[in-house]
């Protein structure tokens, strides 16, 4: 599968599609450490690097990778790392540093069932960590949740674009199934994402400019508060400009599924199933988890009978949905955990239980 023709339809694993897309997006360097279910990303890069002219390095740990990313991104390069849940937990300090130093980069979390060492099966248990901030302090990542192999590839471009525009680390959050499964896809075109070495990068202090400093330390609290205000303003700008979501049968939907990633695909099928029974269900699928599509959910809440949030976890995004709905109608939750994937049928049943047979609210 080394053919890099453009526009060719291919069958690829999500992990490989993502890696190939990153190369086409003009990746300069990748640093990472093996972990199931995402080791193919590193492996793909190692295989391609000599032929395609970018840098790849297997780090000694996830802690090392994220700090290598820090260095390389600080030097103005387009860089990424990837890992899976436990490995991403180890990166939390580094991520907080990167966010504060405002370094664009891409972090990929191909999640597995937790908590703890858990399983290697797919899960969405890292939503909170991704959007609320698993590290310390107030920071945000630009979080994209693909739901197909095609999007695993496409979103790499979006991630770099937004990341570099706002100087915010981007995170692609996809469960292990999306990493491991193969689907057909059309690869994005090589080189369509230009990169300019940023003027703030530590590339060597030339005579015509002051020295560039990459830091997240501001010992004066007044200064640190100003940094925080700056970050918050940036996050607000992103919330205004970069929200993305997808709708399915929402024109007349009374009962609204909200789900991201793989769960959203399963909900789509569930919509089909219950629509056949005459239930007017629809689906809102947040594509960006931060910024979260609050507004559409809030507006929908004005007319909907209720919401049903489906996640492969114990209930995380459901809180953001509740915050957006703000009491305007009931919000129910259906989840599977520990690597289990819900079936469209069980989701359909759950919806009927709540909205047709009226069981208690979660």
């Amino acid at each position, binding site marked *: 599968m080394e053919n890099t023709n453009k526009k060719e339809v291919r069958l690829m694993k999500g992990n490989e599609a993502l890696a190939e897309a990153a190369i086409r997006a003009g990746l*300069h*360097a990748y*640093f990472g450490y093996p972990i199931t279910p995402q080791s193919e990303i590193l492996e793909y890069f190692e295989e391609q690097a000599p032929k395609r002219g970018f*840098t790849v*390095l297997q*780090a*000694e*740990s996830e*802690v*090392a990778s994220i*700090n*290598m*990313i*820090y*260095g*390389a*991104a*600080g*030097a*103005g*390069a387009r*860089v990424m790392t990837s890992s899976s849940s436990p490995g991403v937990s180890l990166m939390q*300090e*580094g991520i907080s*540093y990167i966010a504060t130093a405002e370094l664009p980069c891409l972090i990929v979390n191909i999640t597995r069932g937790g908590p703890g060492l858990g399983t290697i099966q797919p899960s969405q248990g890292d939503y909170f960590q991704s959007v609320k901030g698993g590290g310390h302090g107030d920071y945000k990542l630009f979080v994209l949740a693909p739901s197909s192999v095609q999007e695993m590839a496409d979103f790499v471009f979006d991630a770099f674009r937004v990341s570099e525009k706002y100087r915010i680390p981007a995170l692609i959050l996809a469960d292990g199934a999306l990493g491991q499964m193969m689907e057909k896809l059309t690869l994005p075109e090589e080189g369509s994402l230009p990169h300019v070495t940023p003027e703030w*990068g*530590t*590339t*060597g*202090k*030339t*005579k015509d400019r002051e*020295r*560039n*400093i*990459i*830091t*997240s*330390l501001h010992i004066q609290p007044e200064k640190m508060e100003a940094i925080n205000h700056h970050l918050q303003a940036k996050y607000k700008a992103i919330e205004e400009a970069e929200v993305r979501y997808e709708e399915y049968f929402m024109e007349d939907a009374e009962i609204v599924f909200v789900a991201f990633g793989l769960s959203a695909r399963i909900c789509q099928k569930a919509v089909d199933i219950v629509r056949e029974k005459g239930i007017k269900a629809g689906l809102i699928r947040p594509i960006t988890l931060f910024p979260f599509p609050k507004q559409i959910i809030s507006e929908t809440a004005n007319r909907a009978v209720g919401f049903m949030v489906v996640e492969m976890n114990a209930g995380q995004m459901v809180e953001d949905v509740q915050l957006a709905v703000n009491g305007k109608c009931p919000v129910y939750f259906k989840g599977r955990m520990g690597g289990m994937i819900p079936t469209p049928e069980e989701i359909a049943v759950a919806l009927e239980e709540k909205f047709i047979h009226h069981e208690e609210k979660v």
Partner: protein
Amino acid sequence: MEIPVLENLEVVYKKPETLTDTPFHYCPGCGHGVAHRVLMEVIDELGIQEETIGVAPVGCSVFAYHYMNIDMQQAAHGRASAAATGIKRVLPEKYVFSYQGDGDLAAIGTAETIHTVNRGENILMVFINNAIYGMTGGQMAPTSLCGQVTSTTPYGRDPAKIGFPLKITELIAQLPGAYFVARHAVHTPNAVRKLKKALRSAFEYQKLNKGTCFIEIVSNCPSGWKLSPLESQKWIEENMFPMYPLGDIKVPGKNITAPSTENN
């Protein structure tokens, strides 16, 4: 103070251009200042200010970037060499150095230290060994001496409980990736001269792409040691040097680390 009236005066020593005018925040007599200055002198003399990127640690020298007038990054505690690796790998033509204390490099950063050197990253690692955690108020460092009283070894470092001082420099010198390893100090004019020579070589070697240069600087922490600066210099000589003797540990050409077990 006025300059005494002497004719035909020429400057024979002034602080390097690549040092900013910001006064150091270090305690009186702290070796970090000398180390910073000498590093910048070398960069001045080699004329590589435009091509050098430094990485500051977490430790008292966290603000090194306030003083060094070059592009710099401040890395997470213990990860300076990982950050330096990231920089060097994307800017292989530039000079990259990391600057770390003993807590940073030899405690929390041990894995990064060992693996950076083992990969033979073409960077210079500067290692300030003051046998204590200066910044956080004088706790034991991996390099603290046996019996040394610190805020976390109030009864003296007890090797039976917490082990012997870690000679990380000797350790990494064993790795084939280490190209040039030396231990220096900043307590006397001559020590400073030697250090400067070593730093200069290290930058020159970096052009050769032969591996990691690693320079330990045995330094002092008058505050952490609760000694005056002068007493601290004496303490270095009497207590630090027996454990951390100065000199070259590995010099190019003479590979001390064969891929066998010859060190047994």
